[in-house]
């Protein structure tokens, strides 16, 4: 166990979150870092970079009016990988809308990603949801929902089902600190405590919920402390320190898998961009805050760590950048040329089979002249 607090021990917000790497990528003295192989360490770097590059591109497309909507996660990328990395492929992830890296880590392609954003005929969710609401059953990534917090009790149910089914699978559920205010957070955490469900609650505390700052969400001394209300351990971790997140996640997953119950992780990070492409954060927060957090960039920190391990080079970086960019360009071109899903697909998947009233409504629509439908913008 690297950093886990004993049950009932009280984390405090005044205390610095658990951290392994300093901003220069050095392992702090006295802490035991998890083992990450050279290969994986590099793959993680590539993943971080991919999220950053993809986000960047998509925001530009959105500004150009080529994409309807986007949500970026600049500055929070370490949470995506720190959460997903310690899991087995058979474990399930219940994501919120701000962890695309968790999808990528499990093999969701840039092409899948882009098709979803454009809601085209090849979108894995068949153009049914807004951009950034992915779903990928083949890699145990559960369908993202807009309503905040609803995935929390669902993740508990899945984990509990695994336990009932005598499987070793673990659930990881991501949410923002704003989500801790919902009733869903409470009932999910409470059920998990009572049933000792193998679930890890991952709170990305990025400081903001749209225009609402973290200190307006709760008067508690931290988000991690809320774990005590459910008889489970809670731990604060530096959300921009990938190695530290991996460490606390490994502990939490191990506990879950051993039948020792759930854990709440509060990863302290910062939402450097707007809430979404519809948001303008300069209206409600001091830009200096953003600048301060840029100094703690999680990708730069990982880069320096790799450098220390002699795993990073400018050339490698360029190679990855090119690979990712090329893949992205191909995917975008493809996504924009693929048409909208067929009109009749509107009626599929409401139920397993089309009941009579939907058959009628489908016939009615198909008999009408086709409406203009601009997918992707």
């Amino acid at each position: 166990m690297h950093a886990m607090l004993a049950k009932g021990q009280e984390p405090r917000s005044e205390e610095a979150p658990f951290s392994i790497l300093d901003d220069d990528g050095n392992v702090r003295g006295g802490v035991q870092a998890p083992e990450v192989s050279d290969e994986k360490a590099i793959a993680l770097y590539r993943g971080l970079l991919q999220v950053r590059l993809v986000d960047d591109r998509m925001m530009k497309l959105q500004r150009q009016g080529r994409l309807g909507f986007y949500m970026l996660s600049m500055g929070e990328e370490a949470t995506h990988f720190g959460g997903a990395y310690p899991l087995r492929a058979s474990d399930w992830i219940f994501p919120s809308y701000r962890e695309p890296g968790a999808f990528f880590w499990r093999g969701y392609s840039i092409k899948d990603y882009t098709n979803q954003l454009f809601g085209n005929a090849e979108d894995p969710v068949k153009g049914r949801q807004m951009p950034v609401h992915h779903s990928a059953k083949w890699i145990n990534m559960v369908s993202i929902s807009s309503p905040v917090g609803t995935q929390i009790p669902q993740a508990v149910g899945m984990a509990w089902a695994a336990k009932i089914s005598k499987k070793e699978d673990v659930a990881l559920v991501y949410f923002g600190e704003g989500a801790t205010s919902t009733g869903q957070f409470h009932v999910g955490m409470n059920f998990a405590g009572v049933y000792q469900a193998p679930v890890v609650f991952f709170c990305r505390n990025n400081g903001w919920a749209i225009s609402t700052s973290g200190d307006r969400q709760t008067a508690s001394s931290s988000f991690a402390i809320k774990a005590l209300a459910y008889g489970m351990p809670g731990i604060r971790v530096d959300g921009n320190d990938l190695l530290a997140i991996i460490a606390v996640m490994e502990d939490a997953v191990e506990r879950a898998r051993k039948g020792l119950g759930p854990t709440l992780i509060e990863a302290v990070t910062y939402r450097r961009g707007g809430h979404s492409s519809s948001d303008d954060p300069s209206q409600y927060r001091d830009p200096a805050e953003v600048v301060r957090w840029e100094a703690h960039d999680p990708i730069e920190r990982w880069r320096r760590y790799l450098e220390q391990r002699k795993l990073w080079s400018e050339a490698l970086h360029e190679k990855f950048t090119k690979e990712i960019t090329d893949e992205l360009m191909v995917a975008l071109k493809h996504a924009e040329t693929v048409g909208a899903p067929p009109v009749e697909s509107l009626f599929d998947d409401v139920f397993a089979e089309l009941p009579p009233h939907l058959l009628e409504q489908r016939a009615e629509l198909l008999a009408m002249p086709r409406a203009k439908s601009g997918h992707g913008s």
Partner: protein
Amino acid sequence: MPVMNIIQAVNDALKLEMRRDARVVVLGEDVGKFGGVFRATSGLFEEFGKDRVMDTPLAEAGIIGAAIGMALYGLRPVPEIQFADFIYPAYDQIVNELAKFRYRSGGQYPAPVVIRTPYGGGIRGGHYHSQSPEAYFVHTPGLKVVVPSNPYDAKGLLLSAIRGEDPVIFLEPKRVYRAARGEVPEGDYTVPLGEAKIVRSGSQLTVLTYGAMTHTCLEAAKQSEAAGFDPEIVELRTLLPLDAETVLQSVRKTGRVVIAHEAPKTCGYGAELAALIAERALLSLEAPINRVAGFDTPFPYTLENEYLPSPDRVAAAIKQTATF
């Protein structure tokens, strides 16, 4: 064949299916050792143990939210909500999540959860132990809505619901939980969803109803018969998907319609039935469509008998419509 009441029939269906299919689990408040406040899950805990019959903390959002997660993983959860009146804390999970999971995931994540809950008035429970919320669910694409009125259908419909691939709101008419008794085959059988039943054939007018009101309408029919009227009573059994064919056939035959339900009239399920008929069978109509329903007030306590559509009220509507 054994004679059962509705509670026993529900219990029988659950036992049968839990024996047949290890994926079926039951969860809810007091459903375990205690067997549920209406005893519908009685004996399950003893037979199937705490991993398949789960007492939950007091949180409907948690019950349904967890059931969804279980269903995604491959189980067949049959959660119980103690009274339909307490389903609203789970409304977000039902309406925004359960109903839309298959659709929003492009068919990747079906969530076949069957929510059992006793509904309706007539037990002197005031507005929080008497509501009939069916219209809220029928209006929500992605949910099937089933309401039995007797033990035979209760067992057969519940088995169909659990074996189906879709989420189902299964509303149990608690007013006749014990009063409605009848023969129920011991073993396995199903009653398919989406099929209405003509519980009384008649020539003169069509009464559309479901759930506990089926019994009220049958009583009303006796009065009407004595007064020389001959109503046909169609019990819908499944509200969504509706067996529109059976409904429209009957209406085309009789040309007159009375619709009876307990829920408040305005925007109730009767509105949909009336609208359907006004759309598909207007030219057959010889009289205005007559809705007999709960009044548009919260469900009262002392005046419950005035509130609930009585056999007298239904009989009066039959007379009015038949003689229009």
